């Protein structure tokens, strides 16, 4: 009857309602529920009812060597992967920013790793890295370099995994930086040419400082993802050999779907959430301080 009037009077509530409901159900509720479970002793191993145990899971976590190992490896992997992705990504973007024949083809080829399925990538790279029958060592031998163990030794497993991440995600940094390059003002460049600056000086003193906010955004986006990397590590090593590539997300997976200790798993996920959030805040602060 008066439905139309009701709708009209409450338009500003009704229109965002579907989106808000979706976000609450799919984002807010799971996060809060995870936090709640992290305060209980819910697992499938011990008998007895689930009860509230306060911060016990967090205290136990802080006594667990595997947790510290996982934190260290998470940062090691992220710094290595994102660091190199940023360097290569910016270089590739600067090269692609000039006009040359076949530019679009190169851009297309760059995009391919981005759209490939992580599990398939992981499986192919695993074969590639196989020390005895893999291509990687075969190629090294042709060059007269002795083969490496790649994924199978504690020293090389994280760099080997980071290499896969670099191969897959460097193009994303390039794309973001290219977009940034397209929007740069022309005046400083004209001034520099008039003053007789060499091309490298132009890059160092004009392009890179102007690009800084863009690069920081690209780094922030990549870091959030790299800290949470799961698929390629799970497929390629499942955290092995031993626990040498067990990052925080892999550890949380073991706790929840391997050991069925949901309380402890939730606590480690809350820790991961806090780390990712912390890194985000720091990177965005850095960007803000760059903006004049």
């Amino acid at each position: 009857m008066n439905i139309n009037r009701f709708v009209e009077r409450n338009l500003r509530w009704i229109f965002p309602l579907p989106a808000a409901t979706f976000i609450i159900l799919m984002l807010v509720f799971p996060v809060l529920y995870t936090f709640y479970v992290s305060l209980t002793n819910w697992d499938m191993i011990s008998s007895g009812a689930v009860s509230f145990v306060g911060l016990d899971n967090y205290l136990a976590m802080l006594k667990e060597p595997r947790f510290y190992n996982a934190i260290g490896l998470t940062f090691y992997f992220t710094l290595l992967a994102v660091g190199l992705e940023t360097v290569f990504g910016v270089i590739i973007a600067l090269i692609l920013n000039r006009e040359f024949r076949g530019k679009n083809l190169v851009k297309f080829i760059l995009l391919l790793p981005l759209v490939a399925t992580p599990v398939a990538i992981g499986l192919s790279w695993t074969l590639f890295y196989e020390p005895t029958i893999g291509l990687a060592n075969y190629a090294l031998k042709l060059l007269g370099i002795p083969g490496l163990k790649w994924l199978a030794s504690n020293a090389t497993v994280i760099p080997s995994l980071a290499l896969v991440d670099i191969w897959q995600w460097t193009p994303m940094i390039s794309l973001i930086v290219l977009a940034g390059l397209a929007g740069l003002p022309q005046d400083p460049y004209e001034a520099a040419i008039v003053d007789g600056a060499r091309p490298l000086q132009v890059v160092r003193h004009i392009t890179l400082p102007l690009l800084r906010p863009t690069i920081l955004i690209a780094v922030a986006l990549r870091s959030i993802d790299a800290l949470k990397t799961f698929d390629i590590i799970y497929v390629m090593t499942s955290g092995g050999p031993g626990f040498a590539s067990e990052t925080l997300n892999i550890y949380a997976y073991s706790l929840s779907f391997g050991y069925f200790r949901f309380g402890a798993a939730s606590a480690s996920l809350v820790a991961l959430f806090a780390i990712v959030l912390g890194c985000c805040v720091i990177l965005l602060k850095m960007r803000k301080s760059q903006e004049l």
Partner: protein
Amino acid sequence: MLRTKQNRWRTGLGLAMLLAVALLVNLPVSQAENVTLRFVAANHPFYDVIKPLLPEFEKQTGIKVRAENYEENQLTPKLTVEFTSNASTIDVFMTRPLQEGKLFSRNKWYEPLNRYINDRKKTPARWGWSDFPKSAVQAVTHQGSIGAVPIVTEWQVVFYRKDLFQQAKLKAPKTLEELEAAAAKLNNPAGEFYGIVSRGQRGAAVTQFSSYLYNFGGDFIKDGKCVIDSPEAVKAFKYYGKLLKNYGPPGVTNMSWPQAQALFASGKVAMWTDASVLIAGLLDEKSKVADKIGVALFPAGPAGNHPFMIVPWSLAIPAQSRNKEAAWKFVQWAASKEIAKKAQLAGLTMARNSVWTDKEVLAKIQPDLALTAKQTGPIATPYDRPLMTAVVEARDIIGDVIVKAIETGGNADIESLAKAAAKGVDALLDKAGEGK
């Protein structure tokens, strides 16, 4: 475990989202003549055998079967999540008695099958429950309640290259000393050829390490205490580590059976100790060594010979199923003598006595493999991992000692590592009320 209403409500709430999709396809079925069973299987050769036969069952009974299959590491979490939510629509599932048996029976997720098996109206005598070996029946029985029907069986063997052994004038190893000597003799790292491979990947290695452990006189658990720090167990860790470090391929600490099988099938290793069932991949058309494979009884150690022989997979009905009668018909059919014979002819090793005396089967099966089955049966240990609820975590703890033993060729301080690991497993036993 989660008995109170409040807990059930909370658990259900938390998993509701995961299951929203499952609920959407949850159409209640009440008429017996129009039943569709949901069958959740593992990626296992047994599933490959019965999948094409499902239409036959549907024709015979009028019951429809909707089958889905998962990799074994995804299967347990999938089942656990569904059963925990109390909203499962699964009617029949494949289950690993040694891996999930305790966890699932503790949570009362298995429908006890005793009353189906003992009821002549439901189960004709010729189906033959007595055809299953005693040890297999024990494996699926918890406190008198039969939780599942065994389907396949497997035992640890040595796969070896007959041609290379002949050239080197070697016989199949009968003791662990001979195994090491043969591995040393055939090992040629410069030519990218290795003496032996066995699993070295953390959790996966534990089951294939078990026969080594038993033959040195060790065990996983004794009287409710973890005993992998006993002197015998430490010797076994050291031997296994030294063997694989010195004569194994590089990267063995990341190898479970697929990687080891690939190396053996591509002709890069002389020997491989693993489960009998894996012969199938060595005999298929992709294998370079299909005509050169020997299978030998697992070699004896200082404490005699007690290799494992287990029921890795069985079929169960969830207590939550709403089509139990139809589900039992399906389990009966899938675990029948006829299907067992078909699977055995397809190269599997089945958990029924009758298939091992069937002339047609014996004519076709790899003769070495049949012999090792006969030899292993009477001396076997019926488990290949610690029998406990928290078996996954325990395997990771013990597996880490195996990895360290391999990395250092058995030269690390295995005593302290094993002691720490035993303590970790004890804590898990106590937590589950299984310790002493």
